[in-house]
């Protein structure tokens, strides 16, 4: 029992000492106007102890740790005229949150935005973002928006690694359940993430075919593996990537007759509706012929395909199978 307590105390002390040293290092590197050399750091920053080698090791680890917190440490020369020892500092501009001029109204919009994650994937990141915003010392304006707190659908724990991969152009590899219900390993350079109609979609350039594809997150099985950085990836034509998902060019249309007052799910897809007696004639863009076939069949005798012939053949084939499988 005695050892246990001592152990815990020892652990708390180590945690504190290490965190204390990281904070002191951050303060020192932020406060300095010129680069601090390693020996200056060991000499002046509290917490570097032991042999020279162990100080070196500590410092290397501390640098990595601060970088993993998103703190950029600049490495430079103490005196540009002499090729002497490298020095370190943290630039205030890169360390501090800089959103430019922020008004109380903007702060309240941002805090409303951070509350949209209640319980969903990024709720703890949203909370820490909120803390930082609240630290700007700007009073919050009451927002006279209708009393609602919209909530985002949960995207699972992978959303953080996906967004990191997008930002760093890293290859993502995952197992996807294809439309024939087979497992397929896909490798993409991710370019966008989007939530639509309650589902999350990941889009990216499929490395096997070098074409853009979109994947529904809940059809991805198991974990992602995050691969290497795709260096010469051209993000220039990703400017419009926000709408890649709907920007598929449609040149193929179906003409479907639907009974009046029926087939609401087909009507919402139509780009044109013409009235013909007791029926309405819909023009529907074809994104995926299989899905459209199923949706038309769902509506039974209330929907009838006029064109194109490919869609009619699909419908006929499926109906014939239904008849023969159930006779």
């Amino acid at each position: 029992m005695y050892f246990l307590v001592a152990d815990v105390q020892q652990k708390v002390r180590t945690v504190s000492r290490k965190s204390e040293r990281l904070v002191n290092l951050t303060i020192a590197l932020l406060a300095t106007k010129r680069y601090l050399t390693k020996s200056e750091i060991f000499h002046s920053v509290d917490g570097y102890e032991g042999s020279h080698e162990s100080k070196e090791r500590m410092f290397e680890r501390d640098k990595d740790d601060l970088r993993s917190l998103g703190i950029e440490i600049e490495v430079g020369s103490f005196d540009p005229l002499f090729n002497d020892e490298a020095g370190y500092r943290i630039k205030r501009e890169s360390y501090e949150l800089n959103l430019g001029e922020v008004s109380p109204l903007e702060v309240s919009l941002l805090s409303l935005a951070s509350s949209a994650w209640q319980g969903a994937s990024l709720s703890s990141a949203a909370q820490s973002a909120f803390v930082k915003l609240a630290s700007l010392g700007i009073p919050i304006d009451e927002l006279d928006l209708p009393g609602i707190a919209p909530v985002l659908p949960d995207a699972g724990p992978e959303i953080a690694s996906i967004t990191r991969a997008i930002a760093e152009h890293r290859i993502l590899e995952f197992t996807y359940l294809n439309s024939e219900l087979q497992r397929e390993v896909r490798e993409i350079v991710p370019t966008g993430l989007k939530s639509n109609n309650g589902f999350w979609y990941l889009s990216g350039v499929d490395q096997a075919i070098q074409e853009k594809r979109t994947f529904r997150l809940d059809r991805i099985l198991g974990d992602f593996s995050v691969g290497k950085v795709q260096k010469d990836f051209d993000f220039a034509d990703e400017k419009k990537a926000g709408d890649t998902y709907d920007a598929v060019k449609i040149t193929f249309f179906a003409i479907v007759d639907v009974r009046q007052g029926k087939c609401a799910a087909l009507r919402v897809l139509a780009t044109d509706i013409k009235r013909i007696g007791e029926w309405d004639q819909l023009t529907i863009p074809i994104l995926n012929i299989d899905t459209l076939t199923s949706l038309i069949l769902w509506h039974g005798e209330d929907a009838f395909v006029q064109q194109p012939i490919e869609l009619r053949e699909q419908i006929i084939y499926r109906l014939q199978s239904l008849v023969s499988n159930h006779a």
Partner: protein
Amino acid sequence: MPRKSQSPLDKAARLLDLVPYIHAHQGIALEALAKTFGVTEKELTEDLTTLWMCGLPGYTPLELMDLSFDSGYVSIRNAATLEKPRSITLEEAVALILGLDLIFSVIPTDRQDLISLTQSLRERILHIVKLPPSISVTPHLQPQIQVVISAALADNSGLVIEYHSLYRDELSSRTILPIELQQEQGHSYLHAYCYSANDFRFFRVDRITKAEKTKVERPKDLVPHEIPKVPFRAQVLRSSRETAERFGLGEISVGEEFASSSYSTEWIERAFLASGDSLKLIAPSQMRESLAKRAQSILDRYL
């Protein structure tokens, strides 16, 4: 609030964030501060004790941060180098951007000021973390309907809704008393007492096409009735993800049989029509016959 882990790195991050927060909230109660940072008061006191030892090299009282928290209220002086908050991380930026998208969708169209503020904030945050603009959210709910539902839930009032039932393929008008909103498989459902059915029902929020508040009498009998389910059995003939998702089957192989049930025979028939050649309905046999007949009569129009 999820529990924060206690690695030295997490603690260092928290210490760095505590300083500007306290600086902007001088005299904040220990309890409130602990809650904001998701730690216990004991952990917070340890954090503050550690911070007390931090400061500029030299570490004399002049260079150390001056914290006071004995009274149960926390204030800080001499925080100069750390008094501004740290920049946001990629993850925090994504959380804010997607949240802003959602806010954007509920801003009334006459608030042009808020619309442009939201857009400008989105761009500024993307710029900080150097993300492409291709991360976005398109909410599928009509904001006005969501607003009316929230308001009815808040003051326990009734609603007259227009609802599109997918399996009946009908638009109906119903008077309901909303009870709660639930999320399932990416969709929002409104659990409510329905005065047309005299029973409890779930309504998918994106199929509510109109909603208006109305006065209702609270129903006397608040125990849900048992609705009999219709059981059925089927066999997989062709692997289709669409069919598997329609019946909630997961990864199922060709030849496998499964049993399930539904509240509506109409749903079962439509679901099998839509699944075409990928499924075979085995039981009930009556339904199998009527399915074959229905398919034949639709087919006759094409031939």
